[in-house]
């Protein structure tokens, strides 16, 4: 605080250097996250030399320069060839290092020149090559504000608060321009560059393309977000929130696999709908997905995907895949049909795989299936009977079940262990269905929960990885989620799920957490990933009168807010609160034709004023008395009373 108080007494050059040091500290902070260790050590050395004010002669500067070049060489060692330099990232990195070296030498010389003044802005501009996160967005705004404040502080040579207020008002003045330009400045549809600092490229697990029944099983009770989905209106009902991943046909005892590549598929419904697939248009839905790196090729879409994002393909089993594993966050628009009917053109080969089962492995189940076939000749009834068997089997949902006998996994699950989680339910159901001559397959992906949504935003976490089944009846596939047949959840699993539920935050805190995620997603979508496409969409939406009205009102509101903020920050503080308060009263009196004459006391003025209107006598006398008490008797505690009396008087209509 002492430093702040003495701030405007600091000599101009020293003050300039201090301000510059603050500017460099602010712009260098994010750069330190990716600067290589040798360069970090070099910067540390420069900082030490500056802090200890060691005498810095020419020799020191030459040594520092040599060390700087050596640090640059070590930092770029390996990439230091012409091929490396052709890559923009390395090239920018080299420029930053050279700039840092030059700035260090200039700063050590202790003289302010043009170069030293403009370099913070250059470093800021270059650092933006490497960051594109929400954190950096806020930090960038902070950086710009601080740099603005430092410039104003240098010119104003006044108190810390006054220059801060000026910076605030100036910033408020420019804010509407930034917003308007950001929205309307024409964009092109180039892809967002992919290089840069990737702080959030952790591999997401969960769905694996295979379904293991042993310890490798699909169990990741983690809260890490895999996907964020934004719907145009409301989030669909809970029973529709199945995000399709892979479709598995082959039971390999300890795991399930997709169809072998040799099986030829009769069609690939890319970008078009099959006849009869959608009953009504209202069943289709378009939504936006942000998928975090999974290092797999699947793009997850609501069951059943009908519109794949650019670069992805939908295959015959309606899996949506990219050609390369996802190593960076993917933002895509997708389309699905929530109430569908498909499967008419399925090939015999595929059906053969969907019925493939080894009855000898699960004799009890095979026996049960045989009875079902006899009792329920109609497929639909048989399926219902199957579901009833699962419901009545008294199965428990457990995240830590006893290991199954993999050679007799269905029998062991249904008749012995009677506990497991989605993979065990799906495995048993498909096996039993196939034994009952119902073509069946396993589908894995994510099952989102409505409770993880706010407004039109939905979060899908690693722990939402799920497996369900599809049964082929009357020439179409029906989704059946056998896990829902579980009678109970065991205590341990309930605790585990509860413990992991949104980082142990309950109730309102969970809602707050969701709202934070929601706003983070909105910022991500509308600011960081704002593009030509979104711009066109926004401009098209302006044709809608209601939206246009809302949009224009928001902009006008922002402009008014900025102006008010600017006025508030630039208002001249009252040097004497009593005089300022009285000034309002005098203004009123003047309006009514009463001004203080030369030689007239305030008491005389008040008497003259109130004598004309007896209704005002009491109030004016009260103000007169309070004023004299506050002003001359030093009874400052009565100021509040005086204030109230004056405001009441001004408000009253006589």
């Amino acid at each position, binding site marked *: 605080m002492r430093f702040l108080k003495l701030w405007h007494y600091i000599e101009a050059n020293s003050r300039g250097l201090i301000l510059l040091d603050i500017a460099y500290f602010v712009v260098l902070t994010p750069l330190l996250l990716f600067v290589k260790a040798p360069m970090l050590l070099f910067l540390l050395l420069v900082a030490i030399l500056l802090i200890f004010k060691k005498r810095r002669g020419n020799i020191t500067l030459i040594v520092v320069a040599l060390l700087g070049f050596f640090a640059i060489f070590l930092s770029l060692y390996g990439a230091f060839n012409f091929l490396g330099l052709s890559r923009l990232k390395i090239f920018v990195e080299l420029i930053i290092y050279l700039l840092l070296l030059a700035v260090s030498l200039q700063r050590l010389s202790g003289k302010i020149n*043009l170069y030293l003044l*403009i370099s913070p*802005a*250059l470093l*800021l*501009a270059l650092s*933006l*090559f490497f*960051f*594109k996160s929400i954190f*950096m*967005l806020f930090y*960038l*705004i902070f950086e*710009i504000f601080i740099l*603005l404040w430092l*410039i*104003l502080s240098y*010119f*104003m*040579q*006044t108190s810390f608060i006054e220059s801060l207020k*000026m910076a605030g008002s*100036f*910033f408020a*003045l*420019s*804010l509407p*321009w*930034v917003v308007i*330009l*950001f929205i309307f*400045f024409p*964009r*092109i549809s*180039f*892809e*967002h*560059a992919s290089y840069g600092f990737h702080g959030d490229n952790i591999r997401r697990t969960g769905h694996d393309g295979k379904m293991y029944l042993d310890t490798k099983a699909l169990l990741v009770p983690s809260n890490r977000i895999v996907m964020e989905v934004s719907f145009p209106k409301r989030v669909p009902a809970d029973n529709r929130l199945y995000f399709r991943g892979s479709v598995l046909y082959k039971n390999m005892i300890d795991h399930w696999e997709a169809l072998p590549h040799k099986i030829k598929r009769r069609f690939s419904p890319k970008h078009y709908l099959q006849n009869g697939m959608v009953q009504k248009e209202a069943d289709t839905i378009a939504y936006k997905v942000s998928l975090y790196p999974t290092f797999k090729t699947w793009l997850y879409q609501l069951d059943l995907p009908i519109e794949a994002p650019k670069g992805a393909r939908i295959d015959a089993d309606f899996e949506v895949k990219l050609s390369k594993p996802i190593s960076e966050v993917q933002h895509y628009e997708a389309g699905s049909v929530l109430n569908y009917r498909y499967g008419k053109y399925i090939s015999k080969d595929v059906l053969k795989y969907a019925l493939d089962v080894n009855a000898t492995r699960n004799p009890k189940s095979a026996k049960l299936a045989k009875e079902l076939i006899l009792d329920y000749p109609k497929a639909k009834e048989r399926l219902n009977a199957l579901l009833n068997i699962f419901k009545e089997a008294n199965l428990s949902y457990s995240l830590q079940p006893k290991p199954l006998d993999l050679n007799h996994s269905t029998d062991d699950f249904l008749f012995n262990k009677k506990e497991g989680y989605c993979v065990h339910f799906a495995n048993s159901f498909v096996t039993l269905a196939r034994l009952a001559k119902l073509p069946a397959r396993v589908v894995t992906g994510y099952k989102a929960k409505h409770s993880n949504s706010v407004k039109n935003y939905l979060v899908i976490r690693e722990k939402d990885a799920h497996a369900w089944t599809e049964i082929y009846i009357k020439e179409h596939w029906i989704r059946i989620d056998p896990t829902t047949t579980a009678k109970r959840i065991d205590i341990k699993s309930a605790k585990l799920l509860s413990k992991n539920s949104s980082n142990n935050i309950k109730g309102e805190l969970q809602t707050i957490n969701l709202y934070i995620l929601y706003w983070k997603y909105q910022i991500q979508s509308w*600011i*960081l*990933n*704002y*593009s030509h496409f979104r711009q066109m969409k926004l401009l098209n939406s302006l044709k809608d009168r209601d939206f246009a009205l809302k949009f224009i009102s928001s902009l006008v509101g922002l402009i008014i807010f900025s102006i008010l903020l600017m006025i508030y920050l*630039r208002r*001249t503080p009252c040097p004497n609160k009593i005089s300022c308060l009285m000034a309002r009263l005098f203004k009123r009196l003047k309006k009514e034709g009463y001004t203080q004459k030369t030689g007239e006391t305030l008491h005389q003025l008040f008497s003259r004023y109130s004598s004309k209107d007896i209704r005002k006598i009491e109030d004016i006398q009260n103000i007169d008395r309070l004023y004299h008490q506050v002003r001359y008797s030093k009874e400052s505690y009565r100021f509040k009373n005086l204030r109230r009396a004056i405001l009441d008087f001004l408000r009253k209509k006589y």
Partner: protein
Amino acid sequence: MNFFRKFISIRRRVKQRATRFSLFVVLLMFGLFFEAYMHNFNLVYIALFFIFALAFSAGPVGMRNIGYLEVKSLKCGRLFANQEGKCFFTIENSNRQSSWALEFHTAYSVKKISNIKSKSKIQDSFTITPKSRGILELSPCKIESLFPLSTVRFVLPIDIDCKTIVYPNPIGERLSSYLNRQKSHFGEEMDFDGIARYSGSESASRIHWASVAKGEMAVKSFERLNESEALNFIFEDCASDDESRLSQLTLWVLDCEKHKLPFTIKMPNGYYDSKKESIDEILEALALY
């Protein structure tokens, strides 16, 4: 409406000059534009738009900072050629906001003013060393400011008289030395000329007591009495060339003023009497010779 009217009048008064920092801002914006456009970096767009908006807003902020200022007076003390002198000025800020980072410019000097508080006046001075005598044109007189971002230099020309007179450099023989050398000219009481009638205003030392004793009020009269009450400087006799003569005469005028001695100066173009003209008028005549 008043706000806009005032702003338009300020806009007309205040001139704007781009600085080297504005060139840097343009280059920076150009670079950011390419960085943003090529890679669709929205963060870079935001930085670009902030820089643009701030640079754009700097115009009104800077104009408002300087536009309400008015130079109420600009007066210089006696300025002599090749000697440092002071000029004084008063600036009034009629704005509700303080004005920051100002510079008061004349053709010969720059005075920095850190700020002028709202609705207040400041009085300040600057030093000046004129090279030669005569009329000194201080214009262009103006107030400048780089506030707020130093990308634009805001210039407020001052429409008051920025002229002043520079007197000749007062150098040469001091008056005391001159008086010693020219003692007879100053008058001696020994040169008795006779008795004159007492007018009532003469000094008591000049009363001729012998006549008083006889009942007649008379005073002594001296031959050089009139000459001794005023110094008569003659331009041609002062020095060898005109500038030296003017400098010498200026020095003597100042010495005479200091010792409250009356004097006359005979110039080729006129005659100046300290009893008839003020010292400043005489000095001005010397300056403009």
